[in-house]
């Protein structure tokens, strides 16, 4: 028996609904239909009245989740695609993210963002917005890269008293599998050394972890031992684990699927450069998608985002510096 990343997300929501009467799910097509990706399949039938279809009103969906949280509920909101959180942006960054700091009333909402590119999805169904949300104080941003993390981190997200932006990668939904659901988990906010090595550190998160691992495997055949760090949450960012890894390897490549201006990879490089400059044997490098909207055609799309091949090339270049 095995379980996919998507099934893990469904199972986590089922467990959250079963364990806590304060939990409900709100989003477009999440009810009887089970969600655009079936992440809420059968949950409306299993938990009558607690999985609500919403009108196409991202602003009002997030706003209502905030109001319900103020009155003691713990809503899970599904944005159909991360891209569609844009119309809900105001409620996320100005209402949810400021509520606790302004009023001392916590805002325990979980906002699920089906994120990242898939072949043929185009500019408006492919975006990775974690960097955008991480920029704002008052939000926690999770980017699970494994089936186990998708499950345990979503449960953590619901349990946390603050707004959590849960970036689940659509490309991992169906093909990423684990033998079973996890029974234990690492603490939120801790990065994981996914593959140890001593020559170069690749910091990655979400689907890019798998491209980084493939690159590390490829480079192992060339004699290079690559350490791969999975950030797991990008806010808070586990600077300690990154720094310890760079202290071992002396070389840093940070890989992200989002746009190149600023963002997670820039933040990681900035922290290592400012706090760990003496640890570095070569200039820290970063690899992102291109600075254009995300193209529709699979050939263009593969050239837009980092891939195992481009990660390999960047790592080879860095190893020679």
């Amino acid at each position, binding site marked *: 028996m095995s379980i996919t990343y998507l099934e893990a997300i469904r199972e986590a929501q089922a467990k959250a609904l079963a364990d806590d009467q304060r939990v409900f799910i709100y989003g477009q097509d999440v009810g009887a239909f089970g969600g655009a990706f079936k992440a809420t399949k059968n949950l409306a039938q299993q938990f009558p009245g607690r999985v609500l279809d919403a009108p196409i009103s991202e602003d009002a969906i997030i706003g209502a989740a905030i109001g319900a949280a103020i009155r003691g509920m713990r809503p899970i909101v599904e944005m159909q695609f991360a891209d569609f959180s844009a119309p809900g942006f105001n409620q996320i960054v100005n209402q949810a993210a400021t509520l606790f700091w302004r009023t001392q009333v916590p805002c325990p909402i979980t906002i699920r963002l089906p994120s990242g590119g898939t072949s043929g999805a185009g500019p408006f169904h492919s975006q990775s917005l974690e960097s955008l949300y991480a920029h704002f104080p008052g939000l926690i941003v999770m980017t699970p890269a494994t089936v186990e993390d998708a499950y345990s981190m979503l449960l953590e997200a619901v349990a946390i008293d603050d707004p959590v932006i849960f970036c689940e990668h659509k490309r991992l939904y169906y093909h990423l599998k684990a033998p079973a659901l996890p029974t234990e988990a690492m603490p939120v*906010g801790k990065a994981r050394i996914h593959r140890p090595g001593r020559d170069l550190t690749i910091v990655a998160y979400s689907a890019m972890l798998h491209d980084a691992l493939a690159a590390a495997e490829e480079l192992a055949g060339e004699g290079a031992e690559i350490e791969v760090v999975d950030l797991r949450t990008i806010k808070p960012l586990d600077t300690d684990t990154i720094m310890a890894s760079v202290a071992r390897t002396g070389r840093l490549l940070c890989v992200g699927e989002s746009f190149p201006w600023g963002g997670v990879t820039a933040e990681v490089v900035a922290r290592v450069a400012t706090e760990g400059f003496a640890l570095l044997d070569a200039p820290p490098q970063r690899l992102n998608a291109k600075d254009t909207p995300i193209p529709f055609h699979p050939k263009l799309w593969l050239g837009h985002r980092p891939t195992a091949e481009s990660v390999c090339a960047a790592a080879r270049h860095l190893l020679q510096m």
Partner: protein
Amino acid sequence: MNPLRLHPMLQTVERCGSHNVASSFPELYLKAFGLMLLSRVLDDKMAAFYRAGKIQGGVFLGRGQEALSVSTGLALRPGDIFAPLIRDGAGRLAFGEPVLDAVRTYLGSALGPMRGRDGNVHRGRPKEGMLAMISHLGAMIAVVNGALLAHRFQKLKGLVGAASIGDGGTSTGSFHEGLNQAAVERLPLVLVVANNQYAYSTPNQRQFACRDLADKAAGYGLSARHADGTDLEDCLRVVAAAVDDARAGGGPQMVVARLLRLCGHGEHDDAHYIDPQLKRSALGRDCLAVAQERLLREGWADANAIRALRLNAAREVDEAVATVQREPPPDPYTEDWCALSSRHLSEGHENPPFPPSHDTNH
């Protein structure tokens, strides 16, 4: 379990009372007038402080909108939700907000509900049902909806939520989404629209093209009522009827009141753009003066009683100001700079990179 029962705000609520508690209409009218007057006196004091340079940021008055606002506050009960907007001083007092909350927030006292982290009209006590508005108009409507959804999940019956909005706010996407959402879920939302003719400087004719803002309600399947925002009795009756209908399960309600903002958008604004003809029209009447004339004409209060109300209001405001002026401002040295309630997940507050400076805080 009602969190209000444990809170001092409730005492004020009981002191003010819901309109259902008032034994007669004249008594209710007089109570409403007293709150309007208190709000006006408080506003005038804050405006004076602004002019004296004693307030950081803006001051936003409810002048001319007290009758409508107080009617909303009085129609609500403990346990209800209220999302006031910037000109709702009277409604806030009627719902039970202490005068101290307003003064502390305006003067930035560390002891106020916002502790210097937010100011002026951006104050509230969400746990007691008084939401703290953000500046983005229309955004509070869906938050009220969510609170009402929570009540449904929690099987709390007979509670309503009221949100205030202006003519300008009805143009936002949030307004549309919020109203549509309330209608789809058939929530007990009462949306009170104060059409004060100008959104900052923009007049109605540049704001919307429908004949009447109440026409918007039909688009969402809502019923709408009109009120004369300059007439306290009309406001009291219309808003109370809308709240009663929502409370009885009639779904969302909308009230559209016409009035004129008798001040600038904020005290920084001289409002030179307001059409003088509007000022001279029936819309330009001061609801507080109109209500006072009515009280005297009907014999519900005499001049001495009104003078006493005014003196009491001035005393209450002066006492609050005197109290707050002795209170400490927020201190950046002791401020914990932590935006999360899960402190262990907050970045950086445990190990500041530089030792805190003691000489730059003053």
